[in-house]
């Protein structure tokens, strides 16, 4: 069992969650809970850094979409970054890159989230 771990930090007014592990059904639930906690705390600029995610399932991808929708409803912004080739491939196959704001590095993602209007 490769349990998902999330390291949280705040940077330039942006909440950054660095996620490591497998984003399968269990991992997706952990990530969604983390994102919900941030949003409930009023932190509406969110970066999910997936640099430590080596596997994503449809459940993991669906969770990203669910978080993105919640953020949108609250007029916040979500940026994902650090996608390993496998993760990027899954997102591209699905076509959901059209719904996600994606950056290569965490620095770029934080800069993008900090500059995006809420």
């Amino acid at each position, binding site marked *: 069992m490769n349990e998902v771990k999330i390291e949280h930090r705040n940077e330039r007014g942006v909440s950054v969650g660095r996620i490591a592990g497998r984003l399968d059904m269990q991992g997706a639930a952990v990530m969604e809970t983390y994102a919900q906690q941030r949003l409930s705390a009023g932190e509406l600029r969110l970066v999910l850094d997936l640099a430590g995610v080596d596997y994503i399932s*449809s459940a993991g*991808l*669906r969770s990203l979409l669910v978080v993105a929708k919640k953020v949108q409803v609250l007029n916040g912004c979500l940026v994902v970054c650090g996608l390993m080739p496998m993760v990027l491939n899954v997102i591209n196959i699905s076509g959901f890159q059209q719904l996600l704001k994606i950056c290569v590095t965490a620095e770029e993602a934080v800069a993008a989230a900090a500059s995006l209007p809420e």
Partner: protein
Amino acid sequence: MNENYTVSRYLISRLHHIGIKHLFGVPGDYNLDFLDEVLASPIRWVGNCNELNAGYAADGYARLNGVGAAVVTYGVGGLSILNAVAGAFAEHVPVIIINGAPPARRRESGAMVHHLVSNYYLQLDIYRKITADAALLADPKTAPDEIDRVIRNCLALKLPGYLELPADITRAPCRAPGEFLPAASLTSNQESLTECVAEVAEMLNKAKNPVILAGVELLRFGLGKETLSLVETIEVPFATMLSSKSVLPELHPQFVGIYQGGWSKELVRRQVEDSDCLLSLGAWMTDLDTGLFSINLDARRMISVGNGQVRIGCHFYHEIQLRDFIRELAPAVQPRSYQASHPAGAYHPKQHFVPVPGCGLTALRLYECLNYHLDDQMILIAEPGDAFCAAPEFNIEEAENFIVQAYYCSIGFCTPAALGIALARPGKRPFVLSGDGAFQMTAQEVSTLIRERCPAVIVIINNDGYLIERKLHQDGAYNDIQMWHYAKLPAVFGDESFVIGLRVTTEEELEQAMRTAVSTKDKLVFIEASLPNRDCSAGLDRVGQAFRQAQKK
């Protein structure tokens, strides 16, 4: 409620126990004593304009609440609601009908009382044919057991139930309710289940391109979450059908599309029909779900689960319930990776609707605009007709945000059903999409929506008569109806401070009206969309052509 139980109080207690918070219906002298007890209970009375509408409202309520109920009076009410009950029976929706009847002593003497048709058992006999169970509560000593039995069978089989309550029995003392035991009949044979799941798991593990076809029984038995968990555990793409649209979220990486046989999008049709292992979960192969039986599915490569059994190729496993099957299958199958097992087509987002200035409204643009403005807080209710022919292409992103009567297809269902839906899901907003012909059937229920302060959105597709009939067959004067000033109706029906009525004939007017509907969340917004030249969706054109060709054969 005190401990001095009467038959009425017993029944109300049971209804409340199974989750009924609203009772629909129409008063009549044979049910007034019962309704007095309802008003004194935690269950809220919601009076309707007529019994048919009450039945549709209870049906809409039951589809989201798990069970609904309506109260009518003998004969004139009990027979008026029959069409709605027949629809609930056909579509497996558990609606409990309580029919207030003449006093037992009148029945015993054979007295000719008002609302009697021919004999005192006519309605009971009729209802026995279109319910899971029916009972005449003639004896307060046996009434509690009969009430429990009818409710239990109704819930277990997801079918209507019927209780005939003579006026003099309503206040008769009876025993207090004991523990309510669910029906024992719908459990799986464990030996059969284990063997079946092992065989299906082996088939799925060997398959190169398995697909799940998620059918309407999943909706009726409330198995959406379990099915989603199965999809995500074993990583197999899924398609749905018109009747089961939105049983699972469509905004999902494994969503293939809507399968309707030859009416499907080509990519969807090929992925389903070319699958080397199609797992059909609770799918009903009805005419409109199969593109008028234009499916091309190979039974040798198909596993069909539903109606208490599993069919694999030419052999059957009996006594297997969908819920048990799904629960046991998920851990038995080797999970795939998304890269190896996913829909053939990538996701296409909704297109932003940009109105063309000065452009008259067409059916195509109407549906594009509505689809763009639908959101997760709306539940789309598509009427049989052009509405449900256009609806398969709508993006219903989250589960249980779409309702259709795709099998029984009784036009006029949607407006009253919206009332039940609004009360069952107070956090959501019913969005009725109905044709003008269908709307005229049950239009007066808009007044109940207003009275109950349900902030529905109602879009009437005004295409000048029974357009679907014009398409299915050569046209005739029988398809003409009187043209109403639809947009003025909400104001006629009641409180103008709660309603907005709009008529649109151009793309810009429609866009503005939809913006108003979306932003005005606390009012009922009624939009009459006037279409020229009997214009319709590509879906209805396709249905019409298929029916006409079938008639020639």
